[in-house]
């Protein structure tokens, strides 16, 4: 596959290139792929591997000419969750980084728009982290709010 040839490593996974990179290499690799026809940035995902103690960022890129999909994967430490922002390469990366910052708490250096995105007023841990227990949270928060008591005949 072209992307594997270009970057000199990686494997094929279900018809797509899966390339493991280190955090320093990622900017150069995205630039290199972009120059070589991978001009459609599909998305940026984040996977939380709680037991391995790392976050995995996956940059998906697509080449319209070669019809090839490349997944560039970077591991970052769960305790030191800082990553360099790539938003200068593709404008929509900014939005993905905003979401990941909000949902996983990863800080992207160089992104000036890490404002609240989907949530508003959220005081707790980032909710998409594996150690955030959604069920417990629902029980403690929504279920603890009482119903409004009152005369049955009033309203309803």
């Amino acid at each position, binding site marked *: 596959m072209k992307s594997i040839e270009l970057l000199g490593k990686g494997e094929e996974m279900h018809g797509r290139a899966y390339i493991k990179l280190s955090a320093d290499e990622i900017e150069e690799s995205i630039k290199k792929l972009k120059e070589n026809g991978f001009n459609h940035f599909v998305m940026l995902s984040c996977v939380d591997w709680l037991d391995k103690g790392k976050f995995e960022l996956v940059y998906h890129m697509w080449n319209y000419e070669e019809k090839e999909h490349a997944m560039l994967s970077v591991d970052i430490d769960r305790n030191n969750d800082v990553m360099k922002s790539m938003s200068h390469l593709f404008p929509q990366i900014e939005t993905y980084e905003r979401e990941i910052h909000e949902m996983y708490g990863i800080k992207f250096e160089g992104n000036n728009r890490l404002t609240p995105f*989907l*949530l*508003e*007023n*959220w*005081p*707790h841990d980032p*909710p998409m982290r594996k150690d*955030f227990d*959604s*069920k417990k*949270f*629902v029980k*403690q*928060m*929504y*279920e*603890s*709010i*009482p*119903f*409004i008591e*009152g005369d049955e005949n*009033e*309203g*309803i």
Partner: protein
Amino acid sequence: MGLHNGDKMMRYEEWSKLARKASKRSLWMVHFCTGCGAIEMPPVMTSRYDMERFGIAPMATPRQADVLLITGYLTVKTLRRVIQVYEQMQSPKYVIAFGSCTINGGMYWDSYNTIKHLEKYIPVDLYIAGCMPRPEGIINAFLELMKLIDEGKARGWERYQKYYDKYKENQRRVFNFEVKEEEKEEKEQKREKNEEH
């Protein structure tokens, strides 16, 4: 109009009966798609099901409207706007809630961002069950609401005025995502269980 004085109570009653007759045949709803149930609103409004037959029409702003439709699940962020809209509406005003997600959370029972019971935050006059309710169900709900208005039973807005403080307190808690710590109680329960064993 404006005959709120005690000695004119009889005439007020008669007048309000007439007013109810008028307002039941002319329900204007706010144009607010709060959730996925809004997808069934266009079919109801347009040529196939045509709810203008019953005098129901969509309105652009809350000031002009009588009915607030909560079309499906509500996130906390939307709830804040819904309450703003509800408070801007002019009474008498009615709330119809769509789908199982407004009753008890439905399939989003364990989601961290959707409120589960709508009636904790605003008074609901009528629920439509189902996910999602069919257009016939929606029209049926409107007819039911008309019946309730006619009988003078759709008085959620009075309830909101009466228990305003309680509603506000609930709303404040949900807006600030206040978590009630039950850890102590849980620990005690565990301890008791251990002792029993």
